[in-house]
């Protein structure tokens, strides 16, 4: 097996008396889709926050591509190659889907070089077009983000994260707020885009049908700990998991 892309070693984090992460040990391997499941308050999003530098653990460390990233600022972690899509997408709601993407492309990596370059310059527009196509957003490209369906906003958020050219993408409930009828379509588009871009992904997800269909491996979180992890069929059909977690 190849070396892990992301590794958590004995990560502990508590807020006062609440244990948000307790001796979390986990390895994520290149190319896989790892799904984190568990009840609300189990510490799923906390783990993503630790991995992306928004929270610093009191003990343990996170390694990315073999290098420790614990305690680095979120921007430094993003530069290292870890991007994040949020449960509630952070978008410029009054601006078009295309403009949102141009902003993300322009902000990535270019710093302040050529600050006079227009936002619709091909330098920014071409990657934005490619991402629109990749995430099946072309038909809503000209519409303001506020006017498109939640599913498109979720896809746009993923496209924005992909604009950062990440190696690993952490997605917090990418199908929450999306109708059941649209969930699988959105997940299919999303999974295809990630596979095409060769991006490894960690999902936090509540919908077990989605997990069963798209996960390579699943980890079950409870009280800040990983109860069990493994292939989806083995984990989701585990009697203990079915009784106490699902």
């Amino acid at each position, binding site marked *: 097996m190849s070396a892990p892309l992301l590794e958590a070693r004995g990560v502990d984090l508590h807020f006062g008396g609440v244990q948000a992460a307790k001796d979390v040990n986990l390895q994520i391997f290149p190319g896989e889709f790892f799904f984190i499941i568990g009840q609300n308050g189990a510490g799923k999003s906390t783990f993503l926050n630790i991995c992306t530098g928004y929270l610093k653990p009191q003990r343990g460390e996170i390694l990315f591509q073999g290098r420790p990233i614990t305690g680095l600022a979120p*921007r430094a972690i*993003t530069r290292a190659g870890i991007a994040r899509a*949020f449960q509630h997408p*952070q*978008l*410029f709601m*009054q601006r078009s889907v295309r403009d*949102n993407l141009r*902003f*993300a492309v*322009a*902000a*990535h990596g*270019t*710093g*302040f070089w*050529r*600050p*006079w*370059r*227009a*936002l619709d*310059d091909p330098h*920014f527009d071409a990657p934005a077009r490619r991402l629109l196509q990749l995430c099946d957003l072309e038909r809503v490209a000209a519409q303001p983000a506020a006017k498109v369906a939640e599913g498109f906003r979720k896809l746009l958020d993923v496209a*924005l994260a992909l*604009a*950062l050219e990440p190696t690993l993408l952490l997605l917090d409930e990418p199908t929450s707020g999306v109708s059941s009828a649209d969930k699988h379509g959105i997940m299919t588009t999303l999974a295809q885009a990630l596979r095409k871009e060769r991006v490894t992904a960690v999902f936090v997800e509540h919908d077990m049908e989605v997990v069963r269909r798209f996960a390579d491996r699943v980890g079950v979180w409870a009280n800040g700990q990983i109860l069990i992890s493994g292939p989806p069929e083995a984990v989701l059909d585990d009697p203990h998991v079915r009784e106490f977690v699902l």
Partner: protein
Amino acid sequence: MTAIAGPLLSATINGVTYGATLFLVAVGLSLIFGVLRVLNVAHGSFYALGAFTAASAWLLISALGWPPLCIYPALVISALVVGVAVGPVVERGLLRWTFGIEAEAARENAQLLATYAIFLMLEDAQKLIWGGQPYYSGSALRLLGITRINGIPYTNYQLLLILVAVLVLIALRILLRGTKMGKFVLAVAEDPEVSSAMGIPVARIYTVAFTVGAILAALGGALASPTIGVNTGIGSEMIVLSFAVVAIAGLGQIEGAAVAALVIGVGHSIAVFFFPALSSVIPYATMLLVLVFKPYGLFAAAQVRRI
């Protein structure tokens, strides 16, 4: 021309000239508020520093025996030096510490007090460096000659001020709407959190916007210096007038600031000609009138987008 029309034309031209300087200062204040949400009380001091530095440059040019026309690039260089020296120091060294205050009211209070403290310190610094006597560099006013309009002479320098203000307005429009940097500034003004999530370097944009605002204030002071006696106290007068302009326009409105500066400039000038006793009241009476009917300023779109 009738007995009224002549003075009215003069008052209007003088008012537009005055409004041009006022616009340069007020638009800087507006830019800073639009992006950083900081009501910068020290802005008047940036204006005064620009004026003092330009007056000193004039003295230096005269002492060195350089061609007098050197004063015009020196005015612009003075503004750049002041803005670049003071802007990043105040923003990074002081204001940045206030951005982390969670409660909005506490943050705004801290920023008001901090910028007021800077204002007081810079006022004293001006007295220490330049003393209490006014500086005059009026010769620069006459170097470009005069133009007669309806038989009344106006210095070409006054007309140049109007041109500079128009060029600054156009440049700001092009920079903000047509370039990546400008779009980033607009994005941060719209929503700093989303901007940060997109990877826009919000902290750097804050520094850039504050520095540009400071340069504009200093440019206003530098360009006004040949037309006034440069003395301590000019900063406090200008900041109050700039607040009036920004309040009339609506906070964060750039084109609105141009219109409001014109209204105040021309109103003030007409009052000087026809009702001298009311001249100092006119700007504030105008502001009061506008705010009674339009509490968010004449260009209320400021509620949606700030610059």
